[in-house]
């Protein structure tokens, strides 16, 4: 207990003694994590936007004229078993004629020219929202279209495909950017701890000579790194909150345009937790590696 207190005390002393270096480190970590946070927030909103945009993806499949009722029923039964599909609604030729007459009463006279309904029977397939952007839906639509009984389809598949590509791009970009930022933060903390070790070289030598254990010497540096990461991420969280609150005030014009496209959600608490866990983990890991490397005792 006394040792633990002394160790934490040493870590805090290290931070206070190297005020300037640690202040710069906090700033840089906060800035890199802020970018990470903003990116996360944008991705989160984009996700919500694309889900909202694509949740009503529906496909209408028009059947051949000579289709039999049992073939339709079999197809509908099979489609209803599919997890990707939420609802399948059948519209017969006659129903299509009735619907047309209801929607366009002024054009009703055209239909009197036909002996039978000129409209094909069709099914309208509504997909489950949770799979709305799944590539499997596109494959399924293509598979249904290939059936002999299907004459044509009507679906805004191009949009869906574009959104999927865009989402993939954003995911890859997010991963790439996160990796770079994690590396930058780790590198900074690694070097701050290295400086801290060199700054306290004399003290470390004295500690070794009076019988301090390896862990007693290393632990304050590891804790120092964790502190840097933790407080850097707290600062990043605060800055993220302020940035997102101030953005609509200082960029009203841009914000209104964007708002027209995306209905911004409130900042999810998960982003802050992610930032803090990530910041602390980066701090712990980098300082551990740094302490391991620079506190190694040379063999005589």
């Amino acid at each position, binding site marked *: *207990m*006394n*040792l633990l207190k*002394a160790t934490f005390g040493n870590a805090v002393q290290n931070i206070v*003694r190297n005020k300037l270096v640690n202040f710069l480190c906090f700033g840089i970590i906060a800035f890199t994590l802020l970018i990470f946070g903003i990116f996360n927030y944008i991705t989160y909103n984009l996700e919500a936007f694309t889900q909202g945009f694509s949740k009503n993806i529906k496909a209408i499949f028009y059947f051949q004229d000579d289709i039999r009722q049992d073939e339709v029923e079999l197809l509908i039964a099979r489609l209803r078993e599919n997890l990707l599909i939420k609802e399948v609604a059948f519209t017969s030729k006659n129903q299509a004629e009735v619907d047309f007459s209801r929607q366009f009463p002024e054009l009703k006279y055209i239909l009197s020219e036909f002996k039978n309904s000129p409209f094909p029977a069709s099914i309208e397939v509504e997909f489950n929202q949770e799979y709305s952007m799944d590539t499997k839906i596109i494959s399924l639509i293509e598979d249904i279209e290939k059936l002999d009984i299907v004459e044509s389809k009507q679906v805004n598949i191009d949009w869906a495909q574009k959104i999927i590509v865009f989402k993939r791009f954003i995911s890859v970009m997010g991963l790439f950017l996160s990796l770079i930022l994690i590396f930058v933060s780790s590198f900074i903390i690694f070097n701050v701890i290295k400086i801290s070790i060199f700054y306290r070289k*004399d*003290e470390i*030598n*004295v*500690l*070794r*000579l*009076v*019988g*301090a*254990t*390896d862990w*007693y010497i290393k632990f304050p540096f590891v804790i120092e790194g964790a502190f840097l990461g933790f407080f850097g991420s707290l600062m990043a969280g605060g800055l993220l909150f302020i940035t997102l609150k101030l953005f609509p005030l200082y960029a009203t014009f841009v914000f209104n345009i964007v708002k027209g496209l995306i209905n911004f959600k409130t900042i999810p608490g998960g982003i802050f937790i992610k930032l803090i866990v990530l910041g602390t983990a980066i701090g712990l890991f980098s300082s551990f590696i740094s302490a391991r490397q620079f506190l190694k*005792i040379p*063999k*005589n």
Partner: protein
Amino acid sequence: MIEFYHIYKQYVSDQYALCDISFSVQKGEFIFLTGASGAGKTTLLKLIFKEELPSRGQILIDSLNINLIPHKLLYQLRRSIGIVFQDFRLLENRTVYENVAIPLVVRGEKRAIIDKKVMNALSLVGLTHRRNYVPTHISGGEQQRVAIARAIAANPKIILADEPTGNLDTELSIEIFRLLERINANGITVLVATHDNHLMELFPKRVLKLEKGRIVSDGKIGGGH
């Protein structure tokens, strides 16, 4: 208590810092290591607290071959030894009290015990009134006394002092040697490396004389003080 058996230390090939050193020190003994600069005094002391490893030979402390102590457990050996350096090696950003407390803090001692032991050590070296000073605000002689207080604070079995009076004038040097003698009187084994013959004459103890890494004499010199 300390036994050296045919110790060799080689830093560069065909040049020995120490060559075939064998001697033993009894518990509670006071020994001077003497010799010109570069004779191997500091190297010999460093071998005792395992700052250096011998190239050949064995060193036993309390019958334990220190070569066999794994790095992880080296702190246990160091805790049984108090070390005093010529350049004091005090931490300038800590007070006298905090400097003396270091060996006790790293052991995880309770605050009350630390307080008691630090005050005892400071009282022995006559510096209780300076406990809240930082080392840069006290004299060289006082700094060396603080270093001695730090070395004895955790009740070690052995005190190693490497030229403890190298930076001090004669009067202060005598004071430091008297202090070391007092510590030795409490049963602590003391090894002092010095090249000051005058002081060795004032304090008649066993003297190990080194020349070019070899022991050239082992006996008592001096006529008392």
